[in-house]
């Protein structure tokens, strides 16, 4: 217990999703490198599933439903990891590395 190690992750928001994150297009966060162990769930290296949960607890102000859908992002929000479509990186199961850049872009706004 008490693993305080964190990894730096750069977050970028676009397409309107930034309004849910204090209107900042870029943020650098220190994410716990391991997920906290809980009951039946042992600790595991931080992945995108954990990042999304962490963001919803620590960064999202209100209107969570405009970002979250269960444990993932709402359909219509594109996610890129280091400029690659997360669908090619294992989506929620992608294990984050120090210095990773994660981009969230909404496709739902305007035309």
């Amino acid at each position: 217990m008490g693993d305080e190690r964190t990894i730096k992750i750069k977050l970028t928001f676009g397409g309107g999703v930034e309004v849910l994150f204090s209107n900042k297009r870029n943020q650098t966060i220190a994410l716990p490198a391991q997920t906290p162990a809980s009951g039946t769930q042992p600790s595991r290296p931080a992945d995108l599933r954990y990042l999304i949960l962490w963001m919803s607890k620590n960064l999202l102000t209100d209107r969570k439903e405009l970002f979250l859908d269960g444990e993932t992002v709402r359909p219509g929000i594109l996610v890129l990891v280091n400029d690659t479509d997360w669908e090619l990186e294992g989506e929620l199961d992608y294990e984050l590395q120090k210095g990773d850049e994660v981009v969230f872009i909404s496709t739902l706004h305007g035309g």
Partner: protein
Amino acid sequence: MAPPRACALCQTARPIVRRPKTGQQVCKDCFFHVFETEVHNTITSASLFKRGDRVAIGASGGKDSTVLAHVMKVLNDRYDYGLELYLLSIDEGITGYRDDSLESVKRNQQEYGLPLKILSYDELYGWTMDAIVEQVGRKNNCTFCGVFRRQALDRGAAALNVDHIVTGHNADDIAETVLMNIMRGDIARLGRCTLICTQGEDSIKRSKPFKYAYEKEIVMYAYFKKLDYFSTECIYSPDAYRGHARVFLKDLEAARPSAIIDIIHSGEAFQVADQVALKAQQTCKRCGYMSSNDLCKACTLLESLEKGMGQLATGDRNRRRLDGEPAPENMRTIPMFQRSTPAEPIADP
């Protein structure tokens, strides 16, 4: 579960996107190429343009029209379509929304070197959306905006003396419209909404070169090309019904990405023969725009605003009360722009 790490098209570079339409993993260069080529194929297989056509790109500053302006310019140069391209923007008069998005249109204009025409609701109708919402409230203002925008685009196109307006409607938009028309039982519109090209006022054509382009790919294209676009939701009530259709469609797409194209195909297959007697088209007695009644929709809505009864204009029952009121003195005539033939060149602004 590691995916193969080579592009499905060139077999060499690292893939950066999975195409929703095909499931293929493609690298950045192949993605740009295949996206642009598919739009080119859409344009050529529907014979949308002919050499020398003057084409206005309806530009809102949002993602779709920003990518459309970019791709139209690229394809016109690459395949030598011989088109004269213009940007046409409508300023609805929504403070804090449209004024900002027009700034991004102006930046695009600089970048692509295309002449830009901005036409405002205020100039055409004597009303801004801000003023309309003040009178009618937030509930039905989209009806006004939709009717006024459609006519404004046609009138702006006539003022630019163009043959053709292209808009950024994408595959997702069209699939949404198919769903909405099915849910409303609007058979006439169901047949029309999947058409890639329709003829409007003054025989100006309107078409949708992105008819088969997925929203995901348009947004990815804008991201990787670093195109500058504006993405704030309209500050007045969004079209709630469309919003639900949109969320439903995105859920379907998440389960099966081909759903969007499948729904468009369904819409096309549903096309009904024109056995429904269409109302004879005439021209509006006040402004001369094409209309199926004595007054066109814009003049009818405008008259309701001038009577201070705009909130009554959108329901059938209320219309009786509205029609009982005489038209105010000096009712505004919405200006018509006549296209001159042959086409005269327009000076760059």
